């Protein structure tokens, strides 16, 4: 019981989530905005608790809680990233017009609960806890994705998401049962010494390998790795925009976090002979995500495929399985939160404009002439997109730089059954994919900067009929919270791009202290 204090952030956040549900009953619908403020406050409180815990421990390894889970700088890092994305998502929700005000409390509580799930997930060292955490995330997310009840696409996306989620859970639980059969426990660390039991893992045979493979597939579904990504575009397109933004970052990095912990630290993929498989998955994920994204003309779908590709880049770090790789995974995850949420914030500013009777939609055509309707939004979008593409001096570049460096470094020290060509090939595929991604990211820039603004719904009015000339294009305004979210994202992308040393130094501190 003495280390129950380590659970303080999760406990506090759960309680605040429950409080939100209660408050929903007490607060009348017209003041429902209060609930959103309550929600971001809750996330910020948890964030503060974690930050305080980190500053007390000074980056040293923290004790394990009964072997079920572990609180170390890496888990705390992912929790910070998750909570940051929760706060930014709530900011987006405050400006989003399509959410039913009457259910604001439910919405916020679900958001908070899924965040609690992610916080448990990145700390878990027991497969059952992993499973419970994943289910907590998934069940909350299914409901969140279908929150626009009157929107057919939202319903369709939620159902697909649910079916795929259920399927992947089944695969995962099957893997866990095999693991139990092989090991006699669901712990991922040795319960006696609370340390790694790597020696014991070597002799476990095919059942164990199969178990780890199924578990990997289960994670693959959640992190939307190709070829397990088919639920993503529909779920993302249908979900309310802030939810899409949230789903594209938080569950993804949380899954990446647990994936990194399990397959880089606790049960290294190299020992299982999974390195080549993971490398292929990474290549496939990047390539599929980027290639299909080229052909999208709905920005939500485009960013959905882009987020698939982004997970592929992060996988490079996991394949490399060295210190640089782990650092790269951490850096890229945090940076990805900022740049992807930033991009989605601009999409919301453009798309939600239509809901107010303007000219927005989520089609690419809605971005036509954005630079003349709001130069600031267009430039910010360009910054986020270029960062996603990995161009310097933006934060995305630092992340990719690290991941590619990790792959080359792993190639140099490759030994055992894995040929260095796997790592070098991965790096080459990675950089080529960055080039491909520039094509479709710049397609959005093309719509924003090169085309004139028009009257909406994809039909460009002929100008001789008195259609709006570029100069007369209505100025696009977004709300203060959306601008706040944009400011945070842009500051992070630019600051960590131009001066990444604080980020890198902190990540370096946290990586060697893994259990």
């Amino acid at each position: 019981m003495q280390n129950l204090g380590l659970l303080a952030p999760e406990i506090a956040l759960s309680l605040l989530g429950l409080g939100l549900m209660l408050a929903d009953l007490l607060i009348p619908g017209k003041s429902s905005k209060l609930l959103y403020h309550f929600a971001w406050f809750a996330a910020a409180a948890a964030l503060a608790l974690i930050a305080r815990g980190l500053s007390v421990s000074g980056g040293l390894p923290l004790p394990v809680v009964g072997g079920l889970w572990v609180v170390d700088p890496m888990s705390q890092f992912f929790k910070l990233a998750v909570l940051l994305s929760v706060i930014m998502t709530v900011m987006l929700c405050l400006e989003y017009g399509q959410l039913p005000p009457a259910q604001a409390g439910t919405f916020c509580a679900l958001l908070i609960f899924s965040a609690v799930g992610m916080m448990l997930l990145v700390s878990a060292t027991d497969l059952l806890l992993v499973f419970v955490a994943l289910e907590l995330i998934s069940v909350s997310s299914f409901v969140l994705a279908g929150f626009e009840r009157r929107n057919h696409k939202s319903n369709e996306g939620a159902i697909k998401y649910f079916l795929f989620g259920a399927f992947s859970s089944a695969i995962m639980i099957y893997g866990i049962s095999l693991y139990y059969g092989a090991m006699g426990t669901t712990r991922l660390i040795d319960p006696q010494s609370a340390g790694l039991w790597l020696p014991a893992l070597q002799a476990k045979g095919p059942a164990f390998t199969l178990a780890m493979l199924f578990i990997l597939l289960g994670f693959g579904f959640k992190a939307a790795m190709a070829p397990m990504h088919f639920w993503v575009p529909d779920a993302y397109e249908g979900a309310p925009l802030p939810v899409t933004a949230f789903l594209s970052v938080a569950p993804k990095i949380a899954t990446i976090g647990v994936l990194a912990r399990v397959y880089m630290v606790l049960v290294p993929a190299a020992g299982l002979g999974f390195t080549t498989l993971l490398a292929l998955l990474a290549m496939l994920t990047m390539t599929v995500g980027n290639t299909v994204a080229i052909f999208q003309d709905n920005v939500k779908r485009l960013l959905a495929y882009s987020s698939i590709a982004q997970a592929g880049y992060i996988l490079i770090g996991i394949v490399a399985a060295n210190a640089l790789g782990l650092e790269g995974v951490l850096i890229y995850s945090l940076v990805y939160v900022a740049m992807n949420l930033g991009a989605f914030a601009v999409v919301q500013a453009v798309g939600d404009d239509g809901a107010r009777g303007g000219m927005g939609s989520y089609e690419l055509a809605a971005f036509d002439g954005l630079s003349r309707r709001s130069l600031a939004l267009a430039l910010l979008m360009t910054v986020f997109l270029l960062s996603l593409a990995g161009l310097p001096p933006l934060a995305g570049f630092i992340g990719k730089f690290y991941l590619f460096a990790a792959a080359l470094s792993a190639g140099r020290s490759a030994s055992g059954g894995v040929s260095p060509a796997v790592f070098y090939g991965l790096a080459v595929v990675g950089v080529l994919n960055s080039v491909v991604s520039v094509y479709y990211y710049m397609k959005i820039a093309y719509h924003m900067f090169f085309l004139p603004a028009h009257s909406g719904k994809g039909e460009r009015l002929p100008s001789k009929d008195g259609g709006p000339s570029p100069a007369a294009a209505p100025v696009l305004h977004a709300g203060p919270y959306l601008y706040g979210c944009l400011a945070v994202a842009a500051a992070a992308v630019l600051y960590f791009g131009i001066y990444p040393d604080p980020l890198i130094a902190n990540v370096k501190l946290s990586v060697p202290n893994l259990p």
Partner: protein
Amino acid sequence: MNILSLITFLPLAGALLVLALPKEKERTVQIVSLVFSGLSLVLSGALFFLFNRQTADMQFVERLPWIPSIGVQYFMGVDGLSYPLILLTTLLTFVSLIASLNIKNRIKEYFFWFLILEVGMLGVFASLDLVLFYVFWEITLVPMYFLIGIWGGPKKEYAAIKFFLYTLTGSVFMLLGILAVYFKSSPHTFDLLILLQPHANWERNFQILIFLAFYLGFAVKIPAFPFHTWLPLAHVEAPTAVSVVLAAVLLKMGVYGIMRVSYGMLPLGFHWFLPFLVVIAVINIIYGALCAMAQDDMKKMVAYSSINHMGYCLLGIAGLTATGFSGAVLEMVNHGLITGALFLLVGVIYDRAHTRDIKAFGGLAAKLPVYAGLMSLACFASLGLPGLAGFWGELLCFVGAFPRWKVYTGVSVIGLLVTTAFFLRMLEKVFLGPFNEKWKDLADVDARELCALLPLVVLTIYLGIYPKPALDLINATVGHMAGLFK
């Protein structure tokens, strides 16, 4: 703050200021841009008097930790190889901004992107840390994409994205090369000066592989055959001032990269590639010239002549002599001045006649005497007439390459003949012959255009008669370079 950083980042300050101005204040935007770019020019001009011509060491060095966790530094410095190019960049950018005063739409964005472009170009030449170098290298891409794509010609979008993707494909391999070099060096470093120390312990195959990775990045930019296909398109579609900077400065980044990074850092790879390099140089010279010969579009002709001239630079480098190196650097500077002027002049006629078709004109010399004079001068300079700047660069390249590559140098001379032929053909068709009455209302060069052209023309003549000031800047460094791997 160090003077090099000041030169590099003054345009950035200007760009941010422009961004903060309301877009209706077009005159203010123009003035701010000219002032900041002008300050950069003045400071880089001041370096001309402070520059020590006796040493091959880096000067005006500034070294700060940037990302100490992975050993990346903010490391700037210039020597005889990079300083002339910095001067060229600040001058040509300023000239281009003057030439851009006639841009009518979206002025604020135009000048913003142009100033950002200047930051990237200056940074490439001034940086001595590979990561910093790469960052600046990539910074040039985005403004160029927008400058071509928004203010360009009919196929601007296609030209813009083709430019972007081509250059990026090359440079991502350069990034892998940079990382590989980092892991190879011990202790791991991105410091270019340390990496340029002779290190025979890097095995040959590694050097060849990494050389190719870097070369891909540089060759696209030069552009060296067969990676040149983006260039005519980008040039034809880009607005005048952007073409000027593209030809005068951006192409030089590739040649500079080969001389600065590949040659010194990967000597074995470089020597392995040398036979290919000289063949590519000859192809660039002859093929570029022949392509230029086949064009009726004046801008496209000048664009192909750039490919031809970059061939001279490569030939000079392939000679591995001090003469060849100084020829290459001088040719870069001269080509910047001359081709900059040529693109400006093509822009002048296009602004008035809205065509660049050589065959559409005739007898313009009588109607536009000043224009005809300037154009003839630029053409003669470009084809290497003695007494004008172009001559010295080409001569030194040939002389430098001849001892090692007698046959190839001989063959390259054909390129000179073809160059002469297509420039004379253009001059004849446009300025001589019967006057085409359609153009009786054409006006001669106006004050804005003259302001932009004069510095280039004066320097072309001055360096043609007296190239010593330029060569003095270059000599110590190229002498050192040629002595590295005897």
